[in-house]
Each structure stands twice: as C-alpha cells, then as structure tokens.
C-alpha cells in the first residue's frame, strides 16, 4: 500500500503524489515514514525532506511547520517548501547575505524580527546545503 504525501503552504498546495517512503525533519530528529506508520502529529523544523518513489530519491527543503501521518496519508503543513531542483543557488546566497547583514545590524531591532531573520538564515542555509550536496 503506497503512501500519499501532500505538502501545503498558505500560498498553494506544492506537492501531492503517491510515494514509497518519506523522511521528515522533526524537531526531535529525522523520522522515516513507511506505510503502516501509527498516527502521528509532529512539529518539524527547517530541513530536508527525502521522498523515495520507485527507487528514486527526491529532495525537498521545508521550513518549520507540522506533519501529520494518518493511515496511508502523510500531510505536511509548512510555511515554505521548495523542490531541490528549483532552488536557485545564486538567489538563495544573495538572500542569505542580506539576512546576515541585517542580523549584524539588528542589535537594536525587536526580538521577533531577530528571530524571523534567524529563521530565514537557517532556511537559506539548509537550501544551500542540500543543493551543494546534490552536485
């Protein structure tokens, strides 16, 4: 019995397909989901999501969010999700630089914004990691 994986962000449903297995980056470490997993609701952090389908592995990068396993359905609720192939290394690097620059100057700004920037940096960092490793 194959799994169905759905990834939704506030802006769109970015992924929907039947898959064999998926590895999800939860806050307590990576969790591999195989068919027949018990129902699970977990918080995820920014990281790579490995999808295996018919012997082929696909990498996706997600930012923080939640994942739910229910029967043969795996649903991921994330703020951003991007396919490894669609990552534009240059754009991410630029964004990373900008965010880091802001972080440097951000000693005065409020903590919420600081946290947001740090999140951006982490998300960008993961994207770059995955992209470079794949080459």
């Amino acid at each position, binding site marked *: 019995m194959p799994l169905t994986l759905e990834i939704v962000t506030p802006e769109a449903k970015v992924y929907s397909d039947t898959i064999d297995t998926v590895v999800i980056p939860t806050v307590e470490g990576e969790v591999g989901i195989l068919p027949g997993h018990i*129902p699970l609701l977990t918080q995820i952090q920014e990281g790579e999501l490995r999808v295996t389908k018919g012997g082929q592995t696909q990498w996706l990068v997600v930012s923080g969010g939640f994942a739910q396993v229910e029967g043969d359905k795996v649903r991921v609720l994330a703020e951003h999700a991007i396919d490894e192939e669609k990552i534009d290394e240059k754009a991410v690097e630029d964004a990373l630089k900008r965010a880091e620059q802001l972080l440097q100057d951000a000693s005065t700004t409020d903590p919420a914004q600081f946290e*947001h920037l740090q999140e951006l940096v982490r998300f960008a960092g993961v994207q770059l990691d995955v992209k470079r490793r794949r080459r």
Partner: protein
Amino acid sequence: MASTRDIRRRIKSVKNTRQITKAMELVAASKMKKAQQAALAGRPYAELMAKMLASLANRVEEAQHPFLARREVRTRGIILITTDKGLCGPLNANLFKLVSDIRTPAKYAAIGRKGAQFLARTKRDLLADFPANDRAAFADIRVVAEFMVKQYLDGVVDTVELIWPRFRNTLVQVPSALPLLPLQSLRHAIDDLDSHSGAAAMTQADDREILFEPTAAVVLEALLPLYINREVYEHVLEAKASEHSARMVAMKTAKDNATKLLGDLTLEYNKARQAGITQEILEIAAAQFAA
C-alpha cells in the same frame, strides 16, 4: 454657446479619460481574478490545519494557552486592512466609518497606506503600519500578525480584532469586524477553518490514538500562532479581492460616465458646427443681396 474649438478640446480630454479608466478597469478585473485564485489556493492549508487542530482538541487543557485565556478588556487591538492606492470607490471610506464608530480605547495596526493615513489624521493610536502591495506574500503578512500577537502577549492590547472589507460579490463589499484573540475555543477555530476551506462536513474531533511529538501541548502552542497568521493572511487576500472589484466597478462607472458625456459633447459640437455653417450662408446671402 462655446466655440467649436473649445468643445473639440473637451471631447479630446474626455476621450483620454475614458481610455484611461477603461484600461484601469481591465487591469482591476484581471487582478481581481488573481486575488480570488490566491484565496482559493489557500484552502488546502486551512483544511489541513483544521484536521490538526481537531486531533488536538480533546487532548489538551484549553484554558492554559494564553490565546484562549480571557482577561478584562481595557484596550482593544485592531488590525485595519485597507488599500495602498485610491480610486476604488467608497471602499476605504466605508471602513473608516466603521472605525469612527469605535468609542472604546483602542490601538491600531494598519495594513495599507490609506488606513495608516486615516488613523494618523484622526489622531488614533497607531502602533505600526505596513504596506499592502498587490502580491501579498504570506511572509509579509505574517510579520503583521506576529507583531500584533506580541502586543497582545505583552499586555499592550487585550484583544486582537480585524477590520476588513468583506467580499460578498463583485458589486458588494461590506466593511466587517472579526475578533481574533482571545480565541473562543478550539472548536470555534476548527469551524472557522472548515468554513474557509469549503469542507462539506465538519471536521470532527479525532479521538483515535495518535502519537504527538514532542507533546500535544507543545504542538498546540506552536500551531495556534500559525492559525492567527493564516487568519490574517486570509483576510488580507479577501481585502485584495474586494479592493480590485471595487476599483473595477468604480472605473466602469467612470468609463460609462465619460461615454455619456462624450455623446452630449458631440451633439453640442455638431449643433455649434451647424450653427456656424448656417451663419456663414446667411452672411454670404446677405452680402449677395446687398450687392
């Protein structure tokens, strides 16, 4: 009677106006469609969030979460969603009327320049203002929501409410208010998500055995701020759809008006031209007669 040249000049200017309003109408129509699509694209997210909240609903002490705790309301916190640009009929003015009726102490955050200007002009307590550009990205809106939630948690405001132009149909946008915080209950939040996702059946509380990581309480604590972010985002999208349809209607009225004016002016021009010709013939005839 105005000279034919004056009338011709006016015809030309009205024609230009008609062309511009026509173009703006078309632009607004296409933007409205995009805004409506964006609102639809958010449905799966609402659906999934409802499912997650439902599986948490019966497993955690609700009252412990600060979003669900009630407290005495001294200062209301209001997020006012307006537009950046004008020329959209009475859309913003109607929202301002609603704001003007608020007599209790309140602090505001504005999305959209028009709202910020209004609040500043009427000397209301404006905590922060944010732009409302056409590509309303979740990342931008989330900053607004998080800002307001922080004010709520810090005790600067005791409620978080939204005022936005509800999209009823292309012709009708109703200024509406919606309380966000404190949340009435999880059940209420789930029903609200259901109504937005267009789910046919109510999402039932899920009592089957589920593993929570790290724990149900932690997951709920992280999920509820997302719910508020989504809620604000959704209403910003709706406000966008309202804005563009209001602008489309306003521009259509302006265009129709210009067309009517053009008809009247053309008639007047022809009359003046005719009168001129008649006058000239009369003069020639008179001159011949005299000779």
